[in-house]
């Protein structure tokens, strides 16, 4: 028998590519996935027609226009679509910087799918759900310890929702002191996650953004010029999305506090600082975590992640209701909090993710969490060294310094020398079954690429990823056409971004699509 031949590096890849219609187009009138038996006479006699018991206002006049399909069609559709994705379970997913795409242990999914959890009803009596309340309460306790804050709410369904929860609490705090009208400005930085500015705007604030100083740090002098008696809060991410930790963070906090503002710490980038530095010691009044990043729960493809809002005692009265309380014997839900901002989400949070995060932290312990951060930082700095050896790449700012958990690189030199843009590289990399993300807009770092290796990947994984980047850079110099015309082996097609600010050119629902294309029903 011959030994199996060695495979080339980088490894070859070819993705499925289906001409798969939108599910609404697959619909055929009358097709059914499940045929329900008629209601038995006895049951009908006992129950009557339940639909008639619904209040008039809740009854649909017309049935919803859902796709009508058989089971196997539905299955086929979604399996095909799933073959056209990349993700943390398939590829070396270190290219979605700022998103902390770490491995999500499958055992935690198993725990989350146990009927003990899935069969719970959110309206069940407290005494019958002591177990999950205990887990919520204990996870809150762990996050208190990790952040140094006094109270935590796990109700927000994502990081941005947690930021929004925090800014709402800050607004309520100023209102409680009669300051809400006057304090109408929120300060953030350009390398803070844009959700900080966005959440503040949704909460009705004017937003002031600070640009970095020449070293890439937020500019303290600019902050001093920005604060006033109109400052409601500073919302700042640290480490910022460049992977640079702001060493003057405490001075930032002091300047804002002196002006009477509060300080919120976006800790979605906490994967490199667990057990090393905390919001409390830097003087913050509030912070948040993304459980679906740092604490290893799935990102949910933009669906339910899980956020945690953490606050000091001064802000605790404003936490969303209900809070989970423990009197030493029994867990309970407390709605009686007159200063609460109310609810930010139905019920109590994304419980399956709360359970996963709890399990993940329990499996590691305090020392394990610190080790997670140490390995994440080590991986990142190894990657930094390797990537900088590639032709055409640089890492603007903080020259010669180490980074925390991610780096925003720049292909600027490669673009100048080859005409290939980072967005074209980002399409080409899909041909290798990999992915990278550029950055938020505007591109303050030109031709950006943001990589975050987390603790989950081995040296061999990182080397494999780097080999792909190196090969692409080589192609840019020697065979740019292959990049310009990519993708060749992947499903991704080119999308045109130009019409994005013209609402007539896009639709987010099928109904809107039909209306905007002048069709009533697709033939």
């Amino acid at each position: 028998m011959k030994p199996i031949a060695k495979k080339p590096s980088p490894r070859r890849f070819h993705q499925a590519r289906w001409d798969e219609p939108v599910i609404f187009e697959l619909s055929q009138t009358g097709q059914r996935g499940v045929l329900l038996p008629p209601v038995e006479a006895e049951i009908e006699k006992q129950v009557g027609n339940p639909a008639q018991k619904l209040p008039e206002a809740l009854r649909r006049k017309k049935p919803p226009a859902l796709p009508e399909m058989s089971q196997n069609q539905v299955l086929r559709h979604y399996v095909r679509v799933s073959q056209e994705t990349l993700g943390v379970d398939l590829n070396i997913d270190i290219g979605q910087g700022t998103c902390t795409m770490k491995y999500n242990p499958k055992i935690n999914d198993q725990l989350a799918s146990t009927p003990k959890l899935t069969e719970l009803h959110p309206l069940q009596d407290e005494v019958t759900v002591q177990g999950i309340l205990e887990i919520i309460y204990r996870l809150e306790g762990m996050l208190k310890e990790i952040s140094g804050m006094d109270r935590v709410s796990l109700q927000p369904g994502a990081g941005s929702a947690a930021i929004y929860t925090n800014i709402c609490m800050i607004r309520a705090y100023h209102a409680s002191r009669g300051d809400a009208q006057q304090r109408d400005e929120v300060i953030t930085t350009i390398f803070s996650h844009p959700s900080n500015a966005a959440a503040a705007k949704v909460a009705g604030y004017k937003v002031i953004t600070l640009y970095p100083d020449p070293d890439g740090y937020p500019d303290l002098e600019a902050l001093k010029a920005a604060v006033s008696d109109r400052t409601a809060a500073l919302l700042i991410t640290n480490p910022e999305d460049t992977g640079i930790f702001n060493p003057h963070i405490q001075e930032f906090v002091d300047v804002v506090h002196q002006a009477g503002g509060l300080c919120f710490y976006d800790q979605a980038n906490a994967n490199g600082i667990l057990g090393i530095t905390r919001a409390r010691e830097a003087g913050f009044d509030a912070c948040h975590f993304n459980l679906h990043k740092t604490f290893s729960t799935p990102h949910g493809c933009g669906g339910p992640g899980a956020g945690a809002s953490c606050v000091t005692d001064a802000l605790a009265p404003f936490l969303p209701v209900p809070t989970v309380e423990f009197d030493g014997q029994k867990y309970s839900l407390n709605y009686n909090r007159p200063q609460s901002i109310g609810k930010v989400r139905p019920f109590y949070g994304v419980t399956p993710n709360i359970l996963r995060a709890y399990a993940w932290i329990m499996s590691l312990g305090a020392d394990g969490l610190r080790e997670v951060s140490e390995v994440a930082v080590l991986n990142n700095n190894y990657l930094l060294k390797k990537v900088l050896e590639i032709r055409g790449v640089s890492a603007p700012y903080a020259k010669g310094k180490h980074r925390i958990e991610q780096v925003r690189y720049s292909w600027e030199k490669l673009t100048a020398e080859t005409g290939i843009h980072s967005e074209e590289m980002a399409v080409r990399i899909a041909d290798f079954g990999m992915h990278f993300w550029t950055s938020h807009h505007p591109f303050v770092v030109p031709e950006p690429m943001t990589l975050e290796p987390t603790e989950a990947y081995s040296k061999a994984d990182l080397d494999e990823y780097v080999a792909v980047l190196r090969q692409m850079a080589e192609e840019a110099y020697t065979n740019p056409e292959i990049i310009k015309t990519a993708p060749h082996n992947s499903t991704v097609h080119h999308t045109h971004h130009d019409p994005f600010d013209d609402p007539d050119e896009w639709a987010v629902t099928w109904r809107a699509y039909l209306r905007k294309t002048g069709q009533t029903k697709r033939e």
Partner: protein
Amino acid sequence: MAGKKLGLIVNPIAGIGGRVGLKGSDGLEIQQQARALGAVPLAQERTAAALEVLHSFTGELELVTAPGEMGELVAQKCGFSPQPISGPQRDGGLTTADDTQLAAQAMQEAKVDLILFAGGDGTACDIYQAIGSNFPVLGIPAGVKIYSAVFGITPKDSGELALAFLQGKGVRIHEAEVLDLNEDAYRDGQISTHLCGSLTIPYRRRRVQNQKVPTPASEVVQAQAIATDVVERMTPNQAYILGPGTTTRAIAEHLDLPKTLVGVDIITRDKLLVSDVGEQQILEMLSHRPLKLIVTPTGGQGFLFGRGNQQISPRVIRLVGRENILVVCLASKIAALRGRPLLVDTSDPKVDKLLTGYVEVVTGYREKIIYKIAY
């Protein structure tokens, strides 16, 4: 597909100064000096790179070119059969701005679908002066100085964009600022751009030197957001001096008022008081009513005062007072500064000093940044 007509103008001496370090090619003397240093103009090879792409045009493409070195020759070399416009043919590096302008006018009259021109900021200015802001044109970057946002990022990008535009592939057009740089000052190590006008260009994100920074919202939308914010702050009866630029013009547009693009105008919330004023007129008005000032920096270098808005003199600035100056700027222009401060050069060092420090810059609706001014 219906036939299309493409105009082509090459400024044959564009870029000649660059490779020998002369920082520009304005003026015959510089051009001769450059040739003496062994310079070869880049314009032909750069034009060729853009034209190559146009071979994939499906349908009939008629190429209307300026004569000789100004387009005809390179088009032939690339395998096209160009129709040169009539006019004098001056080769051997003797072409002038007039030739560019005449060619542009002839192409406008010939109703070409798009004028592709190879050159730099100076060439773009010439074209603007010849045919104004409303005719679709696109630059192939070939000059030494490229600060205007009317060029493809690379010659190939220009070709690809022109191709997509001619084939009607959903390419939009928008108005972009044309800047020019004073080359004498540039050679002395100073950079000074001013707004020279604007051109209408086909536009696709990441294909145009959009001051090199893409933003999620188009510049038009950004400028509208800024205008909405500024108008919200304006008080009745207060008069405002509006500096030059498309961003300040958006404020006037929001109020349904006319505004000169490169001039300075004075408005209130409901009417235009005076258009295209000089320093004296501003001072005159200041002598009987207080004025506030709204300015936007030049693209590229970020000059707030002293470039293309000298009407807003040191005396005007003093009388208005720093606290009454409102700075507005697209976020993309700020990002393009790459951390460099905004600049002032009013020719009065005391006023320059007065202006330095941190300033609020309105970048969107209820959005502002804190940015540094230096001199």
